[in-house]
């Protein structure tokens, strides 16, 4: 059994308290909404694409420390990435957190701190919420992304 401290690591608590890129983006080229209907966690993710490159990422909304930290770390990780690299990051993150594939952590840099979430099934959706929204934004989906 994993310990609470595996989930609430210092980096996560820090990003949960002081989320980075936590702002609206008036000149976004794509936005998407992420909604967890079970708990009411709700985020908007903003993307500004410069050609094929992610020029800026930000988010706004409310949710728990895990969902907020995950969104915050995601926004940092994505900046400057190509659309294909962003998609790749999404897939790796998904494998690590949702499928519990710890090996993915190696290629994920700072995002690896969210590895422990896989051992808390009730919190997996928190960690993946903003990512689903990002995915929708990248693919231009109009319906809000949900974790359901």
């Amino acid at each position, binding site marked *: 059994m994993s310990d609470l401290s595996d989930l609430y690591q210092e980096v996560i*608590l820090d990003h949960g308290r002081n989320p980075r890129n936590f702002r609206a983006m008036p000149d976004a080229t794509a936005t998407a909404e992420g909604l967890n209907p079970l708990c*009411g966690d709700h985020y908007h993710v903003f993307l500004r694409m410069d050609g094929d490159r992610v020029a800026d990422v930000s988010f706004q909304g409310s949710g*728990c420390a895990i969902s907020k930290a995950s969104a915050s770390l995601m926004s940092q990780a994505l900046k400057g990435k190509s659309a294909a690299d962003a998609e790749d990051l999404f897939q790796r993150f998904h494998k690590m957190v949702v499928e519990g594939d710890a090996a993915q952590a190696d290629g994920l840099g700072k995002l690896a701190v969210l590895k422990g979430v896989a051992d808390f099934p009730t*919190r997996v959706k928190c960690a993946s919420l903003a990512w689903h929204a990002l995915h929708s934004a990248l693919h231009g989906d109009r319906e809000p992304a949900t974790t359901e």
Partner: protein
Amino acid sequence: MSFDVEAVRRQFPVLSQRPYGKRLAFLDSGATSQKPQAVIDAVTRFYDRDNSNVHRGVYELAERATAAFEGARKKIARFIGAEPREVIFTRGTTEGVNLVAQAWGRANVGPGDEILVTEMEHHSNIVPWQILAAEKGARLVVVPVDDRGEVHLADFERLIGPRTRIVAVTQVSNALGTVNPVKEIARLAHARGVPVLVDGAQAVPHTRVDVRDLDADFYVFSGHKMFGPMGIGVLYGKARLLEAMPPWQGGGDMILSVSFSGTKFNTIPYKFEAGTPDAAGAVGLGAAVDWLEGLDRAGAEAHERDLLEYATARLQEIPGLRIIGTAPDKAAVISFVMEGVHPHDVGTILDREGVAVRAGHHCAQPLMERFGVPATVRASMALYNTREDVDQLVRGLHRVREMFP
């Protein structure tokens, strides 16, 4: 007969387990209550011994199954002060509201009509009415909730108008614990010729309910929140209303005769019970009624009041904790938020301390919006909880504060 909480606890097998090696403090009975051995046994016995379809066979087993099923209906009727034919088995509260919204609503609500609900309703007492309103061109009118989490009779008086077709109100708020004056609300509505549906899901496990005394036209509740099985619930309706209503679902058991030139519907309650019912569930609910009636219920209510007072006082110890819902008349439910920590994180940390609470919007998003919070932590107690459970919750919340200073 006096209320002995330890003796009661021993009848709940679930409560003796130790999640993460900790004593289990189950404080989520508002979501679903635990089941006493007597209920578990009744369901098992039905499948072990009596299982066969009800109202159909001519053999011994079928007779026993039907007798057990109808016996449960009689017990439940007595329990709420109704006649057996006024007790319709449903899957639960949600289905009960949907049944009334669809069967009664379709026949009685038209364009421009109003359906009065309160701001504290569970989604299940909002959405079925919204669906009906959209279908009929009617609209929902909402009775506001004040800062303490109460509704006011004056608002009902003001808002029940010539177009109001029904008032749908909860007796006890699932999210805040507020006890509403449903008897007075019914009186006000009836003075204007408007029927009332009462959502009793959170009321029946805590207090005695007499539908005649409340003068509710419809009263809906779930078995699983009152120590019975999941998947079974009750819609009570005044006989004359039920008789005048068109059927809801069509199928077997709800008919007298079927032909392609026309079908004759069965009498109440069967008119509203199409298909094979959850007979074991009904029998289990009957057992829950027996079990509750075997308790000192006044003693149980006093015990719950003590728990509520004790928990309310002890929670004040936690820095930055704010209770949402401070009505003077409350069931043993406490919703709260903690500054700087999301309810979800509180829930996960408490879980590791063996404390089960609900964190979220409690299917009452309009109410959360009213209080300007996305979610709350809810500790909802039942008659099997103790001060020890509350102490464990408080210890857990101190731990939350350590992690989220």
